[in-house]
């Protein structure tokens, strides 16, 4: 969400990095901006948590940044209803360990001078970050996803990721033990096998699209089947928008730290961690606070947006029939528009393969069970032969081994 705000500021003042304006805002303005954004959410029926009522809005939720951005097309202040990124974005960004690294930065800067004294801009970033994500939220506000019932924000996010994707974060507590949170019985533990099979099938479409002769292994029906199953899996967990508020706040947090790492922002420069890429900045920050970033940070950042967009499209059931499935891999010529879906799918397939170590471009190999030797012609041999020929449709979905998390 904060990346959207930075984008609007860049539209208003081309040439000036948007983060400068975002990080200069007061924490009160930013929390109220989130209230304004929630009020202007697209699909409010699917995200039913109420926004601040109109009668209270002028007092409780006006951020004061609207008048300046009222002319920016596509901004909420110009009247646009906006979608939010998918929870996969938050999951992938959090897997870089950025949240934990910045929590340690806050601890160091609040309690001593080991990391040097930050500049005024750096101090403002620290204050805002602490106020937004490491303080008790206003109980009635959209940020209020923690309470006496669920006091731990990280546990709330872990619960979200587990319910939607059946995955844990790739880092636990400092002593190496898993981070404690409630794991409900109803969780999408089938997500990863289905998602990876979806990526494999789309890759077949990509690599065979230009085939003018020979075999074409593209299977649009299989892509559509997987797309529909993934849509069912994700939307059933989101019935009546039950996870929408937590998903929104998780995305907000991820976009804050992502925006911080996308450029040499004041806190990055203050900590002497300037670099040319988000992953390199995070690696240096991790070294400063003695908490290593994930080795696959580059992959997580590179596919976070693309995976988020594609999953939003899957949830919208855009690929739930064979005719639409080809839009995932088709190359286009004018007058057709450029196919960004194909580009995004290629990004995801490559980066997911690197991050998980499981090659989404490789053809699946199935090992046939070794049958005991029996006399040819015997009824048992006939039955074994028929069984071996039967497609193993559940072979992928039945195995959860190694699919608990990427990386």
């Amino acid at each position, binding site marked *: 969400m904060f990346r959207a705000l930075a984008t609007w500021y*860049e539209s208003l003042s081309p040439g000036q990095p948007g*983060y400068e304006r975002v990080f200069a805002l007061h924490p009160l303005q930013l929390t109220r901006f989130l209230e304004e954004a929630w009020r202007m959410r697209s699909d409010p029926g699917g995200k039913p948590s109420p926004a601040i009522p109109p009668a209270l809005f002028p007092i409780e939720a006006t951020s004061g940044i609207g008048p300046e951005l009222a002319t920016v097309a596509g901004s909420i202040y110009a009247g646009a209803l906006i979608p939010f*990124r998918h929870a996969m974005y938050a999951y992938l960004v959090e897997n870089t360990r950025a949240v934990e690294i910045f929590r340690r930065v806050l601890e160091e800067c609040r309690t001593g001078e080991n990391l040097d004294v930050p500049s005024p801009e750096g101090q403002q970033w620290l204050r805002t970050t602490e106020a937004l994500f490491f303080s008790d939220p206003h109980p009635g506000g959209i940020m209020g996803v923690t309470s006496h019932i669920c006091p731990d924000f990280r546990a709330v996010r872990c619960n979200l990721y587990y319910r939607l994707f059946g995955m844990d974060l790739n880092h636990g507590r400092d002593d190496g033990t898993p981070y404690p949170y409630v794991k409900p019985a109803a969780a999408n533990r089938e997500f990863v096998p289905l998602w990876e099979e979806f990526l494999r099938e789309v890759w077949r479409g990509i690599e065979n699209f230009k085939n003018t002769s020979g075999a074409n292994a593209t299977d649009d029906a299989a892509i559509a089947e997987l797309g529909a199953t993934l849509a069912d899996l994700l939307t059933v967990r989101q019935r009546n928008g039950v996870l929408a508020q937590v998903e929104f706040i998780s995305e907000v947090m991820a976009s804050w730290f992502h925006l911080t790492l996308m450029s040499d922002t004041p806190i990055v420069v203050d900590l002497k961690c300037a670099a040319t890429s988000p992953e390199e900045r995070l690696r240096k920050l991790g070294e400063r606070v003695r908490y290593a970033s994930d080795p696959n940070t580059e992959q997580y950042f590179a596919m976070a*947006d693309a995976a988020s967009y594609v999953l939003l499209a899957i949830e*919208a059931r855009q690929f739930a029939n064979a005719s639409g499935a080809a839009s995932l891999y088709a190359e*286009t010529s004018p007058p*057709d*528009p450029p196919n*960004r879906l194909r580009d995004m799918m*290629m990004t995801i397939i490559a980066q997911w393969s690197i991050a998980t170590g499981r090659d989404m471009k490789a053809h699946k190999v199935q090992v046939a069970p070794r049958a005991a030797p029996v006399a040819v012609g015997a009824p048992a041999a006939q039955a074994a032969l028929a069984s071996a020929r039967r497609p193993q449709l559940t072979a992928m979905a039945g195995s959860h081994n190694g699919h608990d998390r990427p990386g």
Partner: protein
Amino acid sequence: MSTGDPEQGDVVVSGSIAALRDLAEPYPPLTNLQRQIIVWFGELVAALDGPRSGSERGPAKAPYWTKRPPRVDGVDTIRDEEPAYRIEGHGLESTFAVWINGRPVHGWRVGAHGWLIVPEPHDAPREAEILIRTREGDVVAYYPTFTQ
């Protein structure tokens, strides 16, 4: 598969087979449903993508291997101070060498809208085969416009 060597200007140069095939055989048109999905997805990305500032290697950019090969959409001539070919297309911004009928050309430049402006040789041929070499691959432009 380029047959030309940039060091040997007198060798007849042709384009890569892939680029020539793409020119001759555009991709099959989308169905209405596919076009609707792609347009919808483009609008979704436009609503969420950004910001534009930041690291060159930031996630808002496509990785280098997803870049498309260059494409020529049309060639015409301009008659300003210096006669030149104006080549429209995409991916021509990263051009680093140009040949006309096998002879290397100097003084070309990338103009507005990513158009490539190539000065006509003094002995301008009636038919010109313009090979453009970019970081993403080769493409051939013909003047007058080549049709099969």
